[in-house]
């Protein structure tokens, strides 16, 4: 693998539900230290694509390659290869504390595979608490900018829940992070926290796939943007090129560029 090889690539990914093509023949690449923005209207297939990459859903067709090796198997297996994600509808254990939710990514990373799961069971009985974990929770909380570790997750606002999800994913130390609408319902503080995490991962040479409806934010943060429409890639290129493209005009304003010009 040379430096020019992508960190993660997908080719010919498709998924349909009973005749409706949610994602059809989508290919993409993500390089180390790159943020790939994914925009498009509702139902364009952005979340489905994230699901196909992370293994939350099985693709009908298509191949994925992560650092030179095929990426296959279930969601848990792919996470073990270095993928982490957040969810459009935050998936926090509302019954648990903020600290436990933040640590879930790191905890899960320690229990990957049957052997570690069994060892973790024994270790859990012998030594339920490690002071280092509390420190890790505080570090993760600081990275995303959230406080009140001992609150119940159910008491968080939507924006705070999104931050905890980002922190949880960060705790798994992923090489590719997929963020599904991290800015929806987030205030300026939430945006800043997520942005900080994106910058840290980019700086560390990891890859980020950023899905959001906030075109301004995505085009500001991303190195490259993919515009999706009805399950297909309508445009791919630099943020500036994308914003200026006729496809962008058509997808978001429903008009051909000539009409806009006239």
């Amino acid at each position, binding site marked *: 693998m040379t430096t020019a090889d992508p960190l993660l690539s997908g080719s010919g990914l498709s998924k349909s*539900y*009973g*005749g*409706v093509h949610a994602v059809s023949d989508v290919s993409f690449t993500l390089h180390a230290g790159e943020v790939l923005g994914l925009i498009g209207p509702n139902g364009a297939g952005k979340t489905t694509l994230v699901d196909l990459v992370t293994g939350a859903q099985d693709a009908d067709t298509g191949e994925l390659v992560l650092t030179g090796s095929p990426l296959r198997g279930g969601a848990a297996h792919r996470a073990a290869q270095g993928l982490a994600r957040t969810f459009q509808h935050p998936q926090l254990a509302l019954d648990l504390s903020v600290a436990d939710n933040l640590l879930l990514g790191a905890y899960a990373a320690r229990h990957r595979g049957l052997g570690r799961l069994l060892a973790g069971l024994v270790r859990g009985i012998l030594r339920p608490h490690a002071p280092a974990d509390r420190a890790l929770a505080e570090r993760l909380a600081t990275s995303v900018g959230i406080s009140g570790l001992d609150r119940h997750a159910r008491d968080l606002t939507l924006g705070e829940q999104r931050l905890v999800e980002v922190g949880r994913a960060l705790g798994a130390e992923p090489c590719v992070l997929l963020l599904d609408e991290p800015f929806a319902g987030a205030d300026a503080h939430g945006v800043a926290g997520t942005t900080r995490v994106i910058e840290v991962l980019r700086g560390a040479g990891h890859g980020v796939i950023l899905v959001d409806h906030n075109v301004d934010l995505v085009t500001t943060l991303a190195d490259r943007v993919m515009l999706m429409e009805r399950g297909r890639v309508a445009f791919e290129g630099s943020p500036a090129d994308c914003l200026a493209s006729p496809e962008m005009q058509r997808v978001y304003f429903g008009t051909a560029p000539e009409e806009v010009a006239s």
Partner: protein
Amino acid sequence: MVGLRAGLRGMTNPQLWIAVVENGCFFALLGLAFYFNLTGAGFFNFGIGAIAMAAAFTGSWLVTEHGLSRPLAGVVGVLGAIAIAVVMELAVVRPVQARGEGELSALVAVGASLFTIIQLSGLFLGHEARSGQPFWSTAPFSVGSARVGSTVVPIVVITAALFTLSYLALQRTRLGRLTRAIGNDTDAARVLGLPINTARLLSFAAAGLIAALAGITFAGRSGVSPDNALHWTITGFLALVIGGTGTVWAPLLGGALLALANVFIPFYFGGDVLAYGLVVVAMLFFAFRPEGVFAPRVRV
């Protein structure tokens, strides 16, 4: 090894087929009761078997211990069953389900209800099995070499009548169509302001009525004790799951298939094989075709 002759002896034995019909009708009725609960409340009521048992058991007790006439005891049993079903919905299932905690708490709540009904029956009416006291029986007669018992004709007639009535009620009446709409999509129904609670209550009441008629009539053949409750519940659930939830007639098919297994597997292989076989059949059906033979048509 089952010889060909033995095989034929079973399959051509009319007595066994009569048992299939009788069992099949009973299982189908229990399945139909489940179907009503599922349609109106989107919920498997594991209390069905206990309700059927309680109706039959109470009826028998009233006849043998208190000299009530069978029809009167039947009416008391049926009304009691409807009352139990309604109380279950109002006092247990609705409050628990309304909290939206998912299936687990509803399942435990229904399990506790089932257990409570069994214990109540045992405490007040005794744990010993009683002979059934069906409100309607016919004089036994013979068809060729086979003897048709006193409860066969009634249960066939009741089954035919209840399935036809259910079909008409659900397809042809406004409330029935409403009920099905609510079972299909409770959230949408709520948004549309449909009378969800009324439909739910009616579906519980109908399930109680059907279960009671099934239990009282079938007990005439098999007898009844509180121990039957759990079995009857599982049987009705299996009849519905195997038949499918796509049409009101589906439990009839599920009940028939279960009855075939219940009669012929013990005949050929012994009663134990039935218990083991049921586990396997249930597992396969639940895992690979949980929608049953008649699946609901999917509307995209």
